[in-house]
Each structure stands twice: as structure tokens, then as C-alpha cells.
């Protein structure tokens, strides 16, 4: 078989896989299991992504200066603080 045909076959296979991604995603979304009822009743406000500091565990409920509250002139020192942005309140007290 010619190299060009081999390459085109390879690209077609990759393209088929690529086009299957959204289909697979839709299938998974349809069949995704909901959280247990007990957890849904808790009305949680945050994802459990980073557990090292309270303001990265619950960024939606933390205030903007929570990372600097440990003592006057305290600096933010948790590594995840550089990855998790502070919350985005508009108009409300921080």
C-alpha cells in the first residue's frame, strides 16, 4: 500500500476517534449518576478540590482577605492559594 494511503487511513482513524469524543461525552453525561440524596440535602456550596486551607476548600464562602488573616501583615502561604482565585463578590462586603 502507498505511504500516502496509509497516512490517510491513519488520519481517518484519528478523525473518527476525535469525532467520537463528543458522542462519548454526551453518552456519559446522560448516564452520570447523581449524588446520593443525603449529600444533595446538605446544599453544599463548594467542590472538594483542595482541602489544605479553608479559603481554598470553600472559596465561595471565604472572604477576599481570608488568606491574610492569620496575623497582621501575614502573607498567603498555601501552595493552592496561587491556583485558586479569590471569590468574585460585586458590591457586597468582602
Amino acid at each position, binding site marked *: 500500500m502507498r505511504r*500516502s494511503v496509509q*497516512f490517510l487511513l491513519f488520519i481517518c482513524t484519528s478523525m473518527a476517534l476525535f469525532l467520537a469524543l463528543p458522542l462519548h461525552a454526551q453518552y456519559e453525561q446522560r448516564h452520570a449518576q447523581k449524588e446520593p440524596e443525603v449529600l444533595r440535602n*446538605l446544599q453544599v456550596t463548594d467542590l*472538594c478540590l483542595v*482541602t489544605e486551607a479553608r479559603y481554598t*476548600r470553600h472559596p465561595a464562602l471565604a472572604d477576599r482577605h481570608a488568606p491574610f488573616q492569620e496575623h497582621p501583615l501575614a502573607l498567603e502561604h498555601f*501552595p493552592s492559594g496561587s491556583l485558586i482565585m479569590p471569590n*468574585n463578590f460585586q458590591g457586597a462586603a468582602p
Partner: protein
Amino acid sequence: MNRSIERHLNILDFTLASLLRRKGKNGSLLAVYLLVVFLLASLQFYVTALKREASAILDDAPDLVVQRLMAGRQDLVPAAFVGEISRIRGVTRVKPRWWGYYYDSVNGANYTVLVSDDPAVTPGRVAVGAGVARARNLAVGDLVPLVSYDKKPLMVEIASIFPHRSDLVAADMILMTAQDFHLLFNFPDGQATDLAVSVRNPKELPTVAAKIVALHPDARPILKSEMLRTYQSIFDWRGGMTLMVLASALLSFIIFAWDRATGLSAEERREIGILKSIGWETSDVLLLKLWEGTVISLTAYLLGTVLAYGHVFFLSAPLFAQALKGWSVIYPRFQLVPVVDIYQLAVLFFLTVVPYTTATVVPCWRAATTDPDAAMRI
């Protein structure tokens, strides 16, 4: 076969042979390109899926959370707030919530402790997240000693452990009764951590929030829309994590594309000269270079994207997990529900494939339009 297709196949044959002649150079080029696309696509899949998870979780969140501030720091909310806020027109329910953090000195982990009215949770029996069970090597029925704030041991039995698929919500959670919670934290009676407020008409939320602040200037209402906005901004492209990966990947790609665009090697110029002297048209040479760019960039784009999908949704993104883990002792092992944003994949295509292919064609066009004799002499 159609003459035009045959011409393309012939040029593609020649392109592939030419690429294989310089296996080392083109192989490393493909590897770098693939890595850049893989990183950018992984990040895009990861962030989009987390945004979806956040909005799904926030569906069940209260319309309004009311905290109380004391000298700028969060303080406990007196029970009297419940009645006063309930009387505001439009408020349907005010539910006090009791929750906090427990530092486990045994392993240095932080747990989120919540009061739950789940019937499985009874005095002395708690439900824990899979992350807590993993960190303390617990099974259902085990007894765990917790140390209360007045230094008294509180023995609790594990009534249930949440499944791994709930890690994104509950990995670090301990659910207990209000009685155990008050014993553990020596929590004062008649106070709550915050209040979950439900409002009949979502359009009235800002008005209700303003009324709460007017009633209690030390109250801090947090709207559901603000929680959603927080998560949108965390995973925004300007966010720390996204910006860090995006900036390094894009910068390396720009350097790489710039290197290609600024000129051809002497060997490549000589090759173009020879091709022109044996009768190739300028358009044939350009087509050859276009195919060369397409072979590299399309392969890198398609494989990079498919591998990124596998990395994020089948392997749970181990590359990003290390960055998020930080100093956390408990790290959730979650499997994200796949989300594919066609628009963002198209943006990725136009940011990577199109500039690279153009960058390979432009210098060739300059070389191909010069005299073959001059091109071979360089």
C-alpha cells in the same frame, strides 16, 4: 483516478518520504507539538468539566447564605436572625447550618464536619467521605476517636462511607448529629455557623439580601449567583491554574512556530532548488510544504486531543492533580463526567494548526520564487 487526487497523493508520498528522511528532526518536532496540544487540550477538558460539576453541585446550593462578620472575620450567627429573616417578604425558608473544620493531628488532615439530619447518622455514628476513610484506613463499623475542644475524647462509629464517585463533593466530609457536633467543638447553644435562605422569586434575591444587611449591618449575604461566579472565575482563562499552563504552553509554541517561520535550513533550500530545476512548479513546491505542515500539525492536533481526553476523563488528570494537591493530606479521587466544547476545540485548532501550517508555507514561498540556481548555491 481523478488527476488532481493522483497529484495530491504523489506529492503526499514525496512529503512522507522527505519527512522520514529527517526522522530525528521531524520526530522531535512532532513530539513537542503533540505535547503542547495535549497540555492545552487537557487543561481545556479539565476546566470545562470542573465548571460543569460546579454548576451541577450549585444547583442544590441555597439561594442565599447569610454569614455574620465580627471585626471583618466570620463569626457565629445568633438564632434570633432566623426569625427576623423569615419575616422578610419573599423568604420561604431559613435553615440554620452547623459546620466547621476539624484538624486531625494523627495525619495532619483537615476534615469538613457538617451536621446532617440523615436517619443513618445517629448520636455516636457518623458518615464519612471516601477521602477520610482512605486517610485513616477506615471501614464501616470502625470506631474513630476524635478529640473535642475541651480535650475530651469523642468516640464515633463509622455508619457509612460515601462512594468514590462523590469525592468531588464529600471526600473530606464527616456528617454527624447536632448533639455530637456541639460536643466536639464545644459549640455554644443558640448559634449557627451560617443560615441557608430560600427565596420564592429568584429575581428578589438582591432585594432580600439588601433587606438583611439593612436589618443586620454585620450580616454578609452571599447570593447563589455569586457562588457560581466564583467558580467561573476560578476556572476562567485568567485564573491562576489556567494561566500558568496556558502561558507556558503558548510561549513554547510561539518560540517553536517562530523558529519555523524565520527561515529554512540550507538543506531545505537546496532541496527546493533541485525540485525546481527538475521541473517542479512553484505551486507544486508550495503544495509539498503545505502537506508537510498539515501532516505534522494535523497528526499532533488529533492525537494530542484524543490523548488529552483519555488523560482527563479516563486517568483523572494525574498531571493537574499534583498541582492542585499542594499540602493537602486528603485529595479527592474523582472521575469527571466528560464535557467536550466544540467551540473551544475549534479555537485550539485555529491557534495551533493554522499558524503552524502558515509558518511553514511562507518561508517556502520565498525560497520557491527565487531562481533555482541561486537557491542551490546558498
